[in-house]
């Protein structure tokens, strides 16, 4: 696992992918931060910042994950890993943690934006630190779900572009379905959509509630998609 992890991390920086990811992420995050807090003046609201931030994942996550298995399969390097004494789980974990490291690292850099608020806001207007930390944890978890979905989709194809586009679509659907659930006339279906919706659960965090069931939900979703990725490899092997 560590070998795969280290190679992935190196690959992010020997190819433009890592830099593109960080630039796009930090640029967008800072722009959103500016617009939702500093420029809002009195009506500023960090909840808005985090809500828009998770919508940025539609663009950001595919950059990180499109290559992961699609490229390996195209270059047949998966053959090296799968014939080495490494388990499929270890290989997937290596990829996942590498993507998570890139993502979490960049997110933490973007968190420096808050420094400006603490520095310049009036002491009684400074945002709640606990809420900021809680929201960051939630953003990390939501990102983790999307990354595992991205990795799963990447394992289905050897075409990076296809992987990226499908990942965009999948994340979009997952986010928007929660927002539009109120339009569903059939109540039981609305409940189900709300339950599945990543967005609905995220909204509790923006209200300042640290929802453990949501944490569990995000972890389970991450695990589910990583597990399905493993199944893809099993299936291909036994196919």
């Amino acid at each position, binding site marked *: 696992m560590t070998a795969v992890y280290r190679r992935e991390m190196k690959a992010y920086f020997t190819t433009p992918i890592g830099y593109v990811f960080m630039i796009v992420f930090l640029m967008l995050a800072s722009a959103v931060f500016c617009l939702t807090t500093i420029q809002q003046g009195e009506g500023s609201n960090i909840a808005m910042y985090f809500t828009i931030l998770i919508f940025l994942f539609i663009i950001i996550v595919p950059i990180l994950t499109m290559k992961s298995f699609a490229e390996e399969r195209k270059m*047949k390097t998966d053959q090296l890993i*799968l*014939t080495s004494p490494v388990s499929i789980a270890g290989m997937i974990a290596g990829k996942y943690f590498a993507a998570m490291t890139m993502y979490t690292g960049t997110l933490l850099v973007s968190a420096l934006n808050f420094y400006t608020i603490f520095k310049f806001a009036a002491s009684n207007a400074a945002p709640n630190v606990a809420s900021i930390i809680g929201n960051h944890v939630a953003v990390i978890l939501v990102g983790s779900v999307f990354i595992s979905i991205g990795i799963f989709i990447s394992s289905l194809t050897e075409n990076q572009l296809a992987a990226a586009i499908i990942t965009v679509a999948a994340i979009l659907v997952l986010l928007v379905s929660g927002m539009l659930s109120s339009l569903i006339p059939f109540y039981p279906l609305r409940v189900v959509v709300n339950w599945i919706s990543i967005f609905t659960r995220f909204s509790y965090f923006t209200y300042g509630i640290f929802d453990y069931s949501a944490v569990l939900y995000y972890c389970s979703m991450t695990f589910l998609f990583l597990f399905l990725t493993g199944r893809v490899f099993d299936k291909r092997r036994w196919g």
Partner: protein
Amino acid sequence: MIKIENLVKRYGANYALDDISFTVNEGEIVGFLGPNGAGKTTTMNIITGYLSSTSGSVTVNGIDILEEPKKAKKLIGFLPEQPPLYLDMTVEEYLNFVYNLKGCTLNRYKHLSEICEVVKISDVFHRLIKNLSKGYRQRVGIAQALVGNPKIIIFDEPTVGLDPKQIIEIRNLIRTLGKDHTVILSTHILPEVQAVCDRIIIINNGKIIADQKTEEISKAVQNNRRFNVKICGPKKEVLSMLKSKVGIVYAEELAEKDGDAFTYMIESEPGVDIRKNLFYTLAEKGWPLIGLEGVGTNLEDIFISIVDGGGEDTRRKKGPPSKQAAKQEDETSAIGGENK
């Protein structure tokens, strides 16, 4: 060392491998020979644990590849048909990655530099794989298979796409490796296995049709009854002489022309060596014989030789005999047609 029993791989209704069994002993160099699509790569992928079989078992040194894949995979170094290279890495980074991946415990620096010496890639050690030529990439692929000093090395078509000089180098390298490793190599080029291997397994349509020592197969090739002869002399007369000559069952003129010499293809009666006799006859007539070569150093001819000679029993072992025989005839005639 490697024991393969009743291996079957099915894709839907298609059998990629249909009940294959063989054993490879320690220290052997075994050539896996067969036309494209015969099932060579599938077999190798199953041995290395990349694919799983529909049924049957593969044990490596007594370890089942499905039950203890990690242990079994540690014993095998594998060079797939397309070397699994990360183009964005240097050779050094790549080999270090493979070293970590295989959980190697040998002295890193010493081990890797030894491998580089053996496969002659020390001079490109710090270069990006992206920028290497095909020959070098192939060697980096071989180097990768050698990391961890596995007992068994499996090469899938190691010389495809290389230039003749590189082919010879790679073959020599494989022979050197064969001294202290068990090697399985697949190819569709007969001289390659003849040059390198102790034993040849011929596979076609997912079935083993021959499993013999290299000398035996070479003998089968030499027993070939077809020759191309190049004779200076009047075309029609030469041809009619060849056709009427005792011991020749078939003669035809080929399009090739070299000065006043023409090339003919002849086929002798089974068990008759026509060559000396032909020479004397031609000498009497005053038609110089300037070329004589056996036709039948390609795979199709080997198939014919083996099917004609002792290969039948191994071939007919499976399946309903009538259907099998009919199929075999089809194949033989198709191959014969190609040759003429």
